[in-house]
């Protein structure tokens, strides 16, 4: 009986000084004792989990009384309204219409209250193109340490995207959503060399961010591209290089609209196949101008992508302290003009980086 209480005191962290030392010594020496302590720890864990879940359920029950009630009440849907089933196209349209009507009746009030009606309900979605990198493996904790992790915070893992140089001395551009909430950020070049960067500018509205390689001796040769200072034309052939995987990936397409998702004037719509990890990568035209920064795609879809217009990045860079910036020269013709695509890519590879975010 006393042993149990001492074990509980130990697990409650009520022991100190010589008493604590003696207890821990016994743990080290006596395997049977250790087993009893582990057993109590585990049982208390189950008890706590039970209580925590009960509390959560109570909270949710209370919250639910605040949810808006539906006009159809608690009856199941009437027999006439079928679930959405794909039979033939004709009945599909009929059942879609019925379902839409029902959806509006049921969901309308709830959506209105939550302000969600202002969001796009047509079923298309904007999806950011950052990817998650390999999971950080948790070290196996001895069960005796489990009690410390009972209320541990969530580990969201690590994320990756693409970034590209906008100066010769280590300034890189990428998307804000790639680096938001980062504790630390690293970039990796096409040779595999890794550099620590700091975030020197971020703007969630334009979804842009600027990073600086912390090594002050970092230098790149003169950039072979420039940032186009006007909106590119619809129909312009474009291409991107990025890191949806750990080797650079080339994608080709064209600018299909001068506005992005839901008429967003700050980005283009591009017909281009992009994947998670492409976010933050440059969108270039045939002449070597960066016209945009790849940032997202429309789902469900395979080749509708969006890119933030380069003009916004130019404005952003202009507003930065000019000492830190060795500006991209605005030449008429870039070194990439007249090169074959293969050669253009070979020149560009050195200026495009994987962005790795840890948080």
């Amino acid at each position, binding site marked *: 009986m006393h042993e149990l209480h001492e074990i509980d005191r130990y697990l409650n962290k009520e022991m100190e000084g010589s008493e604590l030392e003696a207890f821990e010594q016994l743990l080290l020496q006596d395997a049977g004792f250790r087993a009893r302590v582990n057993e109590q720890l585990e049982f208390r864990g189950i008890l706590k989990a039970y209580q925590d879940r009960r509390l959560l359920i109570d909270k949710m029950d209370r919250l639910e009384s605040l*949810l808006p009630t539906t006009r159809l009440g608690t009856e199941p849907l009437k027999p006439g309204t079928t679930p959405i089933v794909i039979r033939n196209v004709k009945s599909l349209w009929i059942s879609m219409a019925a379902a839409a009507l029902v959806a509006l009746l049921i969901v309308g009030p*709830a959506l209105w209250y*939550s302000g969600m009606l202002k969001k796009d309900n047509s079923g298309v979605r904007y999806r950011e193109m950052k990817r*998650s990198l390999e999971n950080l493996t948790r070290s196996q904790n001895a069960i005796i340490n489990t009690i410390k992790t009972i209320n541990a915070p969530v580990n969201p893992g690590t994320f990756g995207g693409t970034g590209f140089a906008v100066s010769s001395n280590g300034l890189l551009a990428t998307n804000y959503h790639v680096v938001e909430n980062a504790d630390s950020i690293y970039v990796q070049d096409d040779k595999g060399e890794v550099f620590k960067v700091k975030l020197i500018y971020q703007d969630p509205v334009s979804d842009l961010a600027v990073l600086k390689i912390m090594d002050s001796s970092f230098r790149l040769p003169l950039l072979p591209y420039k940032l186009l200072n006007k909106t590119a034309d619809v129909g312009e052939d474009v291409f991107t290089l990025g890191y949806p995987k750990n080797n650079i990936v080339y994608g080709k397409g064209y600018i299909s609209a001068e506005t992005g998702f839901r008429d967003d004037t700050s980005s283009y719509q591009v017909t281009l196949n992009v994947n998670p990890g492409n976010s933050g990568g440059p969108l270039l035209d045939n002449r070597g101008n960066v016209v945009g920064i790849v940032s997202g795609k429309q789902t469900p879809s395979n080749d509708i992508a969006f890119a933030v217009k380069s003009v916004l990045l130019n404005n952003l860079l202009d507003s930065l302290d000019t000492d830190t910036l060795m500006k991209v020269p605005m030449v008429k013709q870039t070194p990439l003009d007249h090169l074959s695509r293969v050669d253009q890519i070979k020149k560009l590879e050195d200026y495009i980086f994987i962005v790795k975010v840890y948080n």
Partner: protein
Amino acid sequence: MGTSFYHKEEISDYQLLKGLATHSTEALEHLYAAYYPMALQLVSLNSGNQEDARDIFQEAVIVIYEKSRDGTFELHCRLRTFLYSVCRHLWLKKLQQRGRNIQLGRETEDLVSVDSDLEEQLWKDKQFTLMKSAMEQLGEPCRTILEDYYLNRLTMQDIVEKYGYTNSDNAKNQKYKCLMRLKKIFFTGHTKL
């Protein structure tokens, strides 16, 4: 309370899950405001009623809560996508149990596989059900004594006073007996799984 419930500022998935794991009521409210309508729509359009939607959403919230609580949750998609996928999985399963012909239509939401996550959850659910049943069988005063000591973290002295024991040794003795009884009931139930 009615309007403020739904007008929440944008918070990130990470903050939301962190809040949920630490029992923040605000985080829970935000979760409901942001994602309950989606669950309601999924269930209502697929032979369910409002009560079904509430049950499914509760179960889904429990899943993400317990994963966040463990500290091993690694979200590789938007929270919305994960929650939706869990709700859909749970609802499909329930429809199956009811013997309904399941044919969900063309999906307009992103989906991710949640099979392994939900399998993990099954074990936690079993533990919960067992403990719940064991605590109920335990009865009073044991149940409250154990809750007071292990969950409400009352000190031995508090317990002596609250229950009117003569001294702390009596209280410790009682706690010991109650715990042993609970363990016995719990582990007997366990073997019947």
